C-alpha cells in the first residue's frame, strides 16, 4: 500500500462505520434456462437419449451461435476438414478481392493442441504470416486478419480472444475483415462459462480478454446504424468440427 492509499481508504471506512453491512448474496449463479424459444436460452439436449443428446447439444450450440451472429451482422459456417477450410478461405479471398491477409502465428492456438493439418491450411491461406515484431502499420494495410477464437458463446454469437505469449491483439482489430477459427470443442452456451474457465497461466488473468459480438457498429449520427466505424466491418467465423 502506498501512503496516499491509506488516507483515501480511511475516509471511506470512516463514513461506512455505522452502516449495517449487507451480506454478499454469493457469486451470481447465472440465469435459469428454459427451452421456450421466446425466452433467451440455448436449447438443451433431449434427456431421453443421452448419446444422441450429446451430439445434438453441439448441433444446438452451432445453430444458436450461427443465428445470433447473423442477427448482429456477422457470419458463421462450419467446416469439417482442413482441405475444406482452405477452399473456403481461397474462395473468400477471390470473392472479396483480398490482396493481403494477415495471420497470427497459427501455432499459438487456444491450447496449443490444434492439429498440424489445420495449421498448414491457415498458413497456406494467409499470404503473410505475422512475425511477432511486425509494426501496427504493417497490419494497417491488410485487408483481412485471421486469428484463432479461444471460445465461442452460442447465446450471443460472440467469440472470445485472449492474449498469450506471441499472440497479437491487433490482427483481429485493425483489418476490415476478421476471420476467426473456432474449434467446436471451444463453443459453449454462455459468457458465464467462459469467464469461469479462462486459464490463469501465471496466476493472473490474461492481460487482455475481448469478447467480440459481430462487426463494429455505431448509431451516433442521428440514430442511423453504421457498420465498421473503428473495428472490423466484417466478422467471419469458421467453426472447425
Amino acid at each position, binding site marked *: 500500500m502506498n501512503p496516499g492509499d491509506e488516507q483515501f481508504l480511511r475516509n471511506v471506512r470512516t463514513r461506512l462505520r455505522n452502516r449495517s453491512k449487507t451480506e454478499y448474496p454469493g457469486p451470481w449463479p447465472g440465469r435459469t434456462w428454459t427451452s421456450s424459444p421466446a425466452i433467451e436460452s440455448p436449447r438443451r439436449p433431449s434427456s431421453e437419449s443421452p448419446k444422441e443428446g450429446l451430439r445434438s447439444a453441439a448441433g444446438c450450440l452451432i445453430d444458436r451461435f450461427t443465428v445470433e451472429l447473423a442477427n448482429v451482422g456477422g457470419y458463421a459456417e462450419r467446416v469439417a476438414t482442413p482441405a475444406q477450410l482452405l477452399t473456403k478461405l481461397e474462395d473468400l479471398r477471390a470473392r472479396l478481392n483480398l490482396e493481403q491477409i494477415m495471420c497470427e502465428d497459427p501455432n499459438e492456438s487456444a491450447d496449443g493442441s490444434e492439429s498440424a493439418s489445420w495449421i498448414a491450411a491457415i498458413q497456406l491461406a494467409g499470404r503473410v504470416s505475422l512475425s511477432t515484431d511486425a509494426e501496427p502499420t504493417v497490419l494497417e494495410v491488410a485487408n483481412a486478419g485471421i486469428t484463432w477464437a479461444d471460445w465461442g458463446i452460442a447465446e450471443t454469437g460472440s467469440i472470445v480472444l485472449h492474449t498469450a505469449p506471441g499472440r497479437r491483439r491487433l490482427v483481429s482489430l485493425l483489418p476490415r475483415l476478421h476471420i476467426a477459427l473456432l474449434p467446436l470443442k471451444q463453443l459453449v452456451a454462455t459468457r458465464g462459462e467462459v469467464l469461469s474457465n479462462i486459464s490463469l497461466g501465471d496466476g493472473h488473468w490474461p492481460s*487482455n480478454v475481448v469478447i467480440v459480438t459481430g462487426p463494429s457498429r455505431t448509431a451516433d449520427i442521428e440514430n442511423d446504424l453504421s457498420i465498421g466505424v473503428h473495428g472490423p466491418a466484417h466478422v467471419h467465423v469458421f467453426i472447425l468440427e
Partner: protein
Amino acid sequence: MKANSVYVRTRTALQSETLKTAVRTTTDKLRIGRNNAVAKIGDFDALRHYAERVRRHTIDHLDHYLQKLAARIRAAGGNVFFAATDKDAVNYVLQLAQREQVRRVVKSKSMVSEEIELNSHLAKHDIETIETDLGEYIVQLGEDTPSHLITPALHKSRSEITELFSGVAGRPLSPDTASLTAFARETIRAHFLNADMGITGCNFAVAETGTVALVTNEGNGRMVTSLPRIQVTLMGMERIVPTMADLDLMLELLARSATGQKVTTYTSLVTGPRRTDEPDGPEQLHVVIVDNGRSNLLGGGYQDALHCIRCGACQNVCPVYRHIGGHAYGWVYAGPIGAVITPLLQGMEQWGELAEASSLCAACTEVCPVNIPLHDMLINLRRDNNALGYTPRSHRAMFRMWRSAFAKPRRFRLTLQAARLLQKPFAREQRLRWGPPPISSWLKERDLPAIAPQSFREWWQSEGGSETSSGGEIRADGKRPDSDISPSRKEAVE
C-alpha cells in the same frame, strides 16, 4: 432567479424544436429497445434484485474491495493511484504525461474525465487529446459537452455533423452516414496509430482479478487499450464488483438497459499491462480511482445512488429529460440520476434545485437495472434543500398557503370558493396566467391549473352521494383513497 439556474437553462432548451425532436426520437428508440430486451429475458426482476444486493454489499464494503482491487492490479504489473479530488486526478495524469513526454492522447468514453475536465487541462500543457467514440468526437469538434450517457451527440443534427467533419477534412463531405463514418474511421485511425497515451473510462473493475472491464460498440475501447504505449483508466471509486460472476450479471443488465442489445459488440477485460513475450498492448497501465465527492454519499440516505451502472435507462423514460435534453441539467450527468448525484457531488447550494426537475412519476425507478429508488431520493433532496434554506422564497410561500388551505375541510372549501371567484380575470384554458405574489413568481417556472367550476365534492352532492362519517368515500377495495400516498410523498406535499 439565478442566471445559471436550471429554470433558465430549461427555457432555453425548450425553445429548440430540433432538440426536442432529436431527444424524443433517440430516447424512444433506446426505451423501446430496452423494453423488448427486458421482455425477452423473462426474469429481469430477479436479475435486478440480485444485482441490487451485489451492488449494496459492494458499496457497504467499499474500502475492502478497493484495497483488494488495488493489490490485484499492482500484482499484475499495473499502477494504482487514489485521487481524492478532481485536482489530484488531473495532476496525476498530467505529471505522468509530462514525465513520459506524451504529446498525443486518444480517449475512449469516460464520464469521470468530463467531471474533472481533463481534456482542457491537458490542452493547456500542449497535449492534444482526441475523443474516439464517434459521438464524443462530434461533441469535441463542436466544442460542446455530451448530453446523454449512451448517445452523447444526440443533440447534433446530420447537417451540423457534416459541417464539423467537412471543417476537419478541408473539403465538403457528403452528408450520408456511410461517408461520415468512413471519414471518422480514417481520421481517428491515424490518431490511434500515433498516440502515446490512451485514456479510458471504466464500466466495472473486478476486485478478485484486478480487471478493468470496458464495453463499446465501435471498437475504440479496444484500440485505446491496445495501441498506445501507456494506458490510463479513470474509474469512479464505486464502479467495482467483487467477482467475475458479478461482472457477468452486471453485463447482462447494462447493454439491455442501455440500448436493448443483449451484449455490446466489444467487451474488453484488461488485467495489467502487456506481459513478457506479448508483441503488443500497453507497456504501462495506470488506474486512477477517483472519489471527487462520491464519499459524501457513503453511510447516508443517498448511498444507493452509488449503485448506478450508468446505463442511461432513467434518462430515456424521464418526461423531463425527454423535453429538455441533457444540457439543461447543467453539469456532467443528466436525467434523474444526474438530478440526484449532481447536488450530492457538487453541492446543494448551487445544484439542489435540480431535484425540482422531476415530475416524481417514478418511471426512472421502474426501469433502473439496480433498483435505485431515484424518485424517492428526489423527494428527499427537495426536503433537504428546503431544510437548508435553499428553496426559492416563492416556493416556500406557495407551500405555506397550500398547507394552510388544506389544514381544515371548512377552510379548504372556503378557499376554493373564494379562489374560484378571484381567479376569473387570470384563468384561460384551465390555467392561471397571472396572480398576486407568490403565485406570480410560481407561474414563472410552472403551470398552475385553474380551479374547476365545480369541485368534486359539489359534483358528488349533486349526484346524490352522501358524505361518510369518516370524511371520505370508501373505495371498492376497502381502502381510503389517501392510503396510496407513501410517507415520502406526503412529506413532499407538505
